[in-house]
């Protein structure tokens, strides 16, 4: 299915993603990496580490509701894949991001901004394998 090209909304949203990442560094001295934050919640080191991650995640989860309250519409969310693919993809995402120490937020936004050499390797790697995967699924297997 086609989706609308939204350069202005996407750029504006990107600015806010960046602002959130900068504020977390300025306030708490931490990288805004969703993989690290989630695994810190799943396997907490201590109460303080658990507390700020919980607050951060609660704030994130409140965002769609706030947008709904302000505009009367939930953000666009269309799932074009089957529940089986969500589960298989999710397990691979969890395994891979944990093994590779980061995902789109940690390596993509924060790592590239720090000019981390590891992130400069990680980001093109996952962008390319994602594109190959989508090509195979849609154009070779025709799912």
């Amino acid at each position, binding site marked *: 299915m086609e989706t609308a090209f939204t350069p202005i909304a996407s750029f504006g949203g990107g600015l806010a993603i960046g602002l959130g990442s900068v504020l977390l*560094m300025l306030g708490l*001295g931490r990288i*805004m990496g969703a993989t690290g934050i*989630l695994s810190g919640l799943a396997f907490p080191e201590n109460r303080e580490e658990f507390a700020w991650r919980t607050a951060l995640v609660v704030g994130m989860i*409140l965002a769609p509701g706030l947008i709904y309250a302000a505009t009367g519409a939930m953000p666009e969310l269309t799932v074009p*894949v089957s529940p089986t693919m969500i589960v298989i993809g999710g397990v691979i995402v969890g395994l891979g991001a944990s093994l590779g*120490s980061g995902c789109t937020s940690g390596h993509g936004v924060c790592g590239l901004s720090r000019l981390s050499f590891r992130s400069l390797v990680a980001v093109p790697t996952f962008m390319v394998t994602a594109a190959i995967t989508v090509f195979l699924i849609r154009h070779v297997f025709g799912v």
Partner: protein
Amino acid sequence: MKLVFALFTGLIFGIGIAVSGMMDPAKVLNFFDIAGTWDPSLAFVMGGALLVTFFGYRLAWRQTTPLFGGRFQIPSATAVDKRLVGGSALFGVGWGIAGFCPGAAIPALGTGRWEVALFLVAVLAGFVLRRLLFARPVKSAA
């Protein structure tokens, strides 16, 4: 106060994810579908986020410590090893299958859609799998 700040920070990040289109798997998968229904919007998300974070980080680091104390905890690892490359390659495969990534799925949970909860449970299963298969602890994010 620190927790209120963290919540506010999460809210801004989540609004960014929602407005940008990152939480819409149809849009994410189309970004990667260059040979099909290509939608290059998400390049603009990355552009906006990097612009603010690149300069914002450098301003933040002018402080000697973070506002709420402690120290700036910046990943120190520099080695490009099999785990980094293999893990990142796997992550991309999973992202291309499901269309969600963790940072988009957390705010997306707030839409109340069951598919998002299913994805996040699967991600947690993937974390557990990593701990079972590769016992050595991995340094957290990036």
